[in-house]
């Protein structure tokens, strides 16, 4: 029998019997197709890896599930790929867990699975094992996806403390992902062209291999945005950062929407950006190298490292004032009027 994709997920599928088996077989196994998944065990047996292992996990609970520039599926793959890549690893294998709410349209599930397969292919990683659970209606929010990833650190790159005068590079405009989501939220249906920057960064990061020695730390600024990453680094490494507002790239529509809602793009999530702290003398070379990559064309130096001081992260504003850049407190919420 064929799966009728016009239908919805129901509890028969969730019971783990034939219906579930058929769904996994016809949809997940077919789309993710690779030799490890084909083993169909409760685990994937993987070949020995050449280097230290990097292991990462993240759960995706985004709403809406489909947005301009991506969907929860591509996000779940790219997010974990980027977490591994920003740690200096080459991402190899991914495990995917689905928690689906009863009543969820099968057509949407198929779209999400296809999108994951495509993202994995682009990022050159394999989805090697997985799990699917169905929860009763009202106990989930459509679909949640967890992805865990394994990568290998082939050379000996390890994060090191930023030094005074080091510079911070980012590969382009900030805030696109968060604003693409926000503009599609219920009640905020702004007609806008903002598209998520959702992308796998491993090949961009891999292209920087010749400069590895001069890269101190890397991180993808997702939830909490650029400000969260800088504040975390500042606290952990006991240094301070000064952003130059003039250097920050914020796309016009993101800026406009932020202004209307009273948001600060520094706090808004990105899904295709990486921030690097690099030695001052190599910053320009690294930046131009990044510009050669399709995901790095708008790379730029946005901040510098100062010695530890009381205010950990600050920004020189366009007007020459200096202000603190704090962590985001709670969720950013639209202003009332």
């Amino acid at each position, binding site marked *: 029998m064929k799966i009728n994709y016009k239908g919805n997920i129901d509890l028969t599928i969730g019971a783990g019997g034939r219906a579930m088996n058929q769904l996994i077989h016809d949809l997940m196994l077919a789309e993710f197709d690779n030799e490890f998944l084909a083993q169909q065990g409760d685990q994937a047996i993987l070949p020995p890896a050449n280097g230290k292992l990097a292991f990462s996990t993240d759960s995706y609970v985004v709403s809406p599930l489909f947005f301009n520039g991506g969907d929860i599926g591509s996000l779940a793959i790219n997010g974990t790929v980027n977490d591994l890549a920003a740690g200096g690893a080459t991402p190899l294998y991914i495990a995917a867990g689905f928690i689906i709410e009863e009543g969820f349209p099968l057509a949407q599930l198929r779209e999400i699975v296809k999108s994951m397969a495509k993202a994995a292919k682009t990022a050159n990683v394999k989805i090697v094992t997985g799990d699917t659970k169905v929860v009763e209606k009202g106990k989930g929010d459509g679909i949640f996806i967890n992805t865990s990833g394994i990568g290998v650190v082939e050379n000996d790159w390890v994060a090191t403390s930023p030094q005074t005068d080091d510079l911070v590079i980012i590969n382009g405009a900030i805030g696109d992902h968060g604003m693409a989501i926000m503009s599609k*939220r*219920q*009640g*905020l249906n702004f007609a806008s062209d903002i598209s998520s920057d959702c992308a796998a960064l491993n090949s961009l990061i891999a292209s920087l291999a010749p400069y590895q020695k001069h890269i101190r730390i890397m991180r993808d600024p997702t939830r909490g945005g650029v400000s969260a990453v800088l504040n975390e680094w500042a606290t952990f490494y006991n240094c301070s950062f000064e952003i130059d507002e*003039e250097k920050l790239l914020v796309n*016009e*529509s993101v*800026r*406009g929407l932020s*202004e209307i809602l*009273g948001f*600060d793009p520094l706090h808004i999530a990105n899904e295709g950006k990486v921030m690097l702290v690099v030695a001052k003398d190599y910053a320009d070379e690294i930046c131009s190298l990044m510009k050669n990559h399709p995901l790095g064309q708008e790379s730029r130096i946005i901040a510098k490292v100062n010695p530890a001081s*009381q*205010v950990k992260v*600050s920004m020189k*504003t*366009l*007007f*020459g*004032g*200096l*202000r*603190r850049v*704090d962590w985001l*407190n*709670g*969720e950013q*919420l*639209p*202003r*009332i*009027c």
Partner: protein
Amino acid sequence: MKYIDEFRNSQVAKKLIENIQRKINPERKYNLMEFCGGHTHAIHRYGINQILPANIKLIHGPGCPVCVLPIPRIDQAIWLANQPDVILCSYADMLRVPGDKQDSLLKAKARGAQIQIVYSVLDALEIAKNQSDKMIIFFAIGFETTTPPTAHAILEAKKMGLDNFKVFCNHVLTPVAMTAILDDNEVNIDGFIGPSHVSIIVGSDAYREVAQEYQKPVVIAGFEPLDVLQSIEYLIDLINENKPDIINQYTRAVNPEGNLKAQEIIARVLEKRQQFSWRGLGQIAKSGLKIRQEYAHFDAEVYYNLPEFQSDDVKSCECPQILRGIKEPKDCKLFGKACTPENPMGACMVSSEGACAAAFQYSLISR
């Protein structure tokens, strides 16, 4: 959205600052109150407070609806949320505002009360349409900006015969609050940076009383940083010339008479209360709005026979002084220590437009 860049140009900013420096009389102090939290936010976010001459003092006024709602009204909202079969719809900011004994809607929600975050009253109306087995109460707050949509929603609900939609009305009036601040002897203000969004509705003429009877100039300013700088320059001119006029800097959105259609809808559905209590400012006559008798069917206060609560601000919280410009956030013992945006003790720390939240988030003072 092209216009935004023009209002952030750093060259123009330099020019404006030079003008201001040239124009000020070094012998005197200029106490300027920005009524609106949106301006407070812009001033801190762009570091405008640091580039102005030292004798210009910017005072953060009560212009954020989250900051001025008194604790008993929060307690009433929590009470409403706890009624059986109720879904209380609220703007997100309100969820964190502390009520009596640091309780909040957020905590009530965690205990099981049905509270739904909405971005506008129309979302609440939509929920009422779709969930006829529940009573949907909209927690309406805000100045003149958010009032017309509330009034409009009540008219819509009436048209549709929606019995399960109620409004807990807490709308307040801006010009009245300005005069109330000026009536306070402790307060020392030379002029106002007037609200932007509010003025789109009420119009620049609404500040006649402030300007003429109280002899305080008002410059209505947009929210962009250059708007704010230019308005400060205009205010300095007016103060120097002793001219208590109204200047409309925000001409791209505000006109003298305001939005007449919105005013008409408000007047049709809502009327002034005899008294309304403001956090920090106390009772102010004719400063709040309630739902007219004709629409009482949609009034949560009437429908539920809402109990009164007696609760006070946290003892050492200086919000009342801050909202009147007598003290600054850093003068509060709790600032940045017991009171942070994650755990606000007073309302000024809740909304990102509150004076304490803006100071905490953006300023370089230690905390």
